[in-house]
């Protein structure tokens, strides 16, 4: 256990996305944030029906079309070309965000710069100069029955991203319910990080040392096991 090197041995993004995908519920309506969270759809377990929502007014979209087959009037919020699954629908932006804020989505998954132990999320601004942009992030953190984050456990410099209190500008307060990281699966309950799963190779002490707030336990902590090769 002493040999675990966080920066070298943590899960790569695809494996974090795979783990998050295992929790996609059959029959659920899900919004995957632009970028890393979109990868979750690739690992949707067979036999589960999931309907994906995108902010620009599409429900029930599928895979990207083949190169050269794009119709650029048919895109997702990340402005990538998409295809439609059977049962898809179009709607305007106010209806789209009614689905978001109105509690109609089962799950929204976002990326994070920082997550606070009370569920605060910072993912839209690093607070420096430059051009600010917020998009739909501040809306998405409200209303979905579950708001999950997928993220590396630490920054590129190895510093904790899970903190007692976020220091970067907030996207929303007290909104995150579950975090899938490169080392662990953690729930947020009653203003605390509650550890559900961790990589079996990392010790509790080492995991705590790269987490910026106390990890609590509520029952057993399961091993976070991801297949060596992902299909």
């Amino acid at each position, binding site marked *: 256990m002493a040999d675990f090197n966080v920066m070298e041995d943590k899960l790569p993004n695809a494996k974090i996305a795979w783990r998050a995908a295992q929790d996609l519920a059959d029959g659920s309506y899900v919004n995957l944030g632009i970028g890393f969270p979109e990868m979750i759809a690739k690992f949707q377990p067979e036999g589960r029906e999931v309907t994906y929502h995108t*902010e*620009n*007014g*599409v429900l029930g979209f599928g895979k990207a079309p083949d190169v050269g087959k794009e*119709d*650029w*009037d*048919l*895109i997702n*919020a990340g*402005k990538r070309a998409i295809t439609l699954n059977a049962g898809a629908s*179009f*709607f*305007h*932006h*106010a209806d*789209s*965000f009614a689905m*978001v*804020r109105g509690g109609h989505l089962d799950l929204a998954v976002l990326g994070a710069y920082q997550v606070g132990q009370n569920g*605060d999320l910072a993912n839209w*601004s690093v607070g420096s100069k*430059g*051009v*600010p*942009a*917020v*998009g*739909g*992030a*501040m*809306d998405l953190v*409200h*209303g979905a029955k579950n708001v999950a984050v997928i993220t590396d456990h630490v920054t590129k410099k190895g510093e904790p991203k899970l903190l007692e209190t976020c220091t970067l*500008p*907030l*996207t*929303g*307060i007290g909104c995150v319910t579950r975090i899938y990281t490169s080392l662990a699966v953690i729930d947020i309950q009653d203003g605390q990080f509650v550890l559900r799963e961790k990589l079996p190779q990392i010790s509790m002490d080492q995991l705590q040392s790269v987490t910026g707030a106390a990890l609590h336990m509520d029952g057993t902590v399961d091993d976070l096991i991801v297949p060596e090769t992902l299909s």
Partner: protein
Amino acid sequence: MTKIADSVRNAVAGIPDGAQIMIGGFGGSGAPIELIHALIDRYRTTGSPANVTVINNNAGNGSTGIAAMIKAGMVQKMICSFPRSSNAEAFNSKYLAGEIALELVPQGTLAERIRAAGAGIPAFYTPTSFGTDLAKGKHTEDFDGKMYVRERWLKADFALLKAHKGDHSGNLTYRLAGRNFNPLMAMAADHTIAQVADLCASGSINPEHVITPGIFIDTVVEVQNPKQEEELVREGAIY
């Protein structure tokens, strides 16, 4: 009285200096490129309309459409949710040089502010942005134990829209995800101008299929085979 304009040039002829203009579309999908370019043509020829404020989800991409308006120097302010697109150099360079103003609005709040204006609702409460920098200075209130931020309606003098079919009554349909902000902006501006790929006689759109009813539309102009902004950006087109 006809709602039909015979050219994009004439459709945008009445937009004055300082106008607040909603422009439909999300990225390139549903963006009324020909109406925007007609406005740029007028500005280049006559110097008007100058100092306009543009309301759109983004702040232009590449060197056509809204990006070309910004480059031409006719935009004094953008109201949008996501100006930082992959190819938003036109806005970025003016913004960082202090030559263009920005009002940043969360995307769902932007949509609802526009919808509220069209529906005659001066303000509403949303959970979005509560506790963040974007809620600073705004009134907040507790409803049933949760905090909400009060947001105002957002109106415009003109709206430029892109639709698929349009009839002589002003009824509109949209193509694929090109709907996005267009039906909302149709409700929220004093004068709405829609470019349609297929102008047809009243009665030829099944009333069950109408997305935007003609009451919200003042001017319709036909642009067959309209350009698509994303394709223009990929071609490296410069307007």
